[in-house]
């Protein structure tokens, strides 16, 4: 059976016109990306759920008051809202975003890698941990772009829209991030293989 997927812009129009199911579809379509994005900044499930909720409350209010005018750019718009809420969260708690290796994260690393043997699982975890530590050492702007691209699977267009820089700047930051990672890996002769 062929499944025809309505574009975001059409679902937004339907929702504004009063079709509540359209919102459910939009949330379902993007929940993983948005939730993952917030969680990558704040590795706490409860806070991430709160920010996800606040993000969509803003989305709902904006759409219901007919104030939305970014047709065709629904996801970057929602991502930008969640990004701003993450910044607000850190302003309130006066903490800088940090990636910490938590028990929860390790569990997910194992769960998503069911096909691997135990030995390979351990190696894979170690590689991921090593890589995360290396990424931690990058300058904040490079780290942000690299995480969005590699961990959130965003396009450079989306990254540029969320971070407020040009696509070329985002590309440049990604390039420098990879160059810096390679430098550190070469310097310390780290082996990242599975």
């Amino acid at each position: 059976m062929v499944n025809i997927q309505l574009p975001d812009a059409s679902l937004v129009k339907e929702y504004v016109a009063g079709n509540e199911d359209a919102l459910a579809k939009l949330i379902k379509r993007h929940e993983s990306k948005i939730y993952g994005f917030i969680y990558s900044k704040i590795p706490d499930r409860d806070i991430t759920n709160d920010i996800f909720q606040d993000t969509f409350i803003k989305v709902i209010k904006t759409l219901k008051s007919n104030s939305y005018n970014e047709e065709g750019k629904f996801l970057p718009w929602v991502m930008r809202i969640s990004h701003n809420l993450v910044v607000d969260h850190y302003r309130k708690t006066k903490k800088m975003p940090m990636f910490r290796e938590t028990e929860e994260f390790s569990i997910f690393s194992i769960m998503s890698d069911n096909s691997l043997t135990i030995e390979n699982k351990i190696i894979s975890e170690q590689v991921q941990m090593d890589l995360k530590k290396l990424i931690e050492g990058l300058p904040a702007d490079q780290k942000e772009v690299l995480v969005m691209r590699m961990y959130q699977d965003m396009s450079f267009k989306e990254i540029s829209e969320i971070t407020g820089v040009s696509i070329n700047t985002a590309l440049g930051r990604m390039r420098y991030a990879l160059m810096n990672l390679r430098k550190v890996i070469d310097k310390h002769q780290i082996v990242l293989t599975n």
Partner: protein
Amino acid sequence: MAKTYSKKSLFSQVMKPSKETISFLLGYSQALTIIKIENKSFEIISN
């Protein structure tokens, strides 16, 4: 290196908001009505 970087995220694929959060949002959306009168907007939450 390229092989390692080309791997997809381990957590972004499985991360989802709680059912309660989604349920709240859909309920909130159904209950919310926004009325604009001149420059002011009024939010009405129906039970």
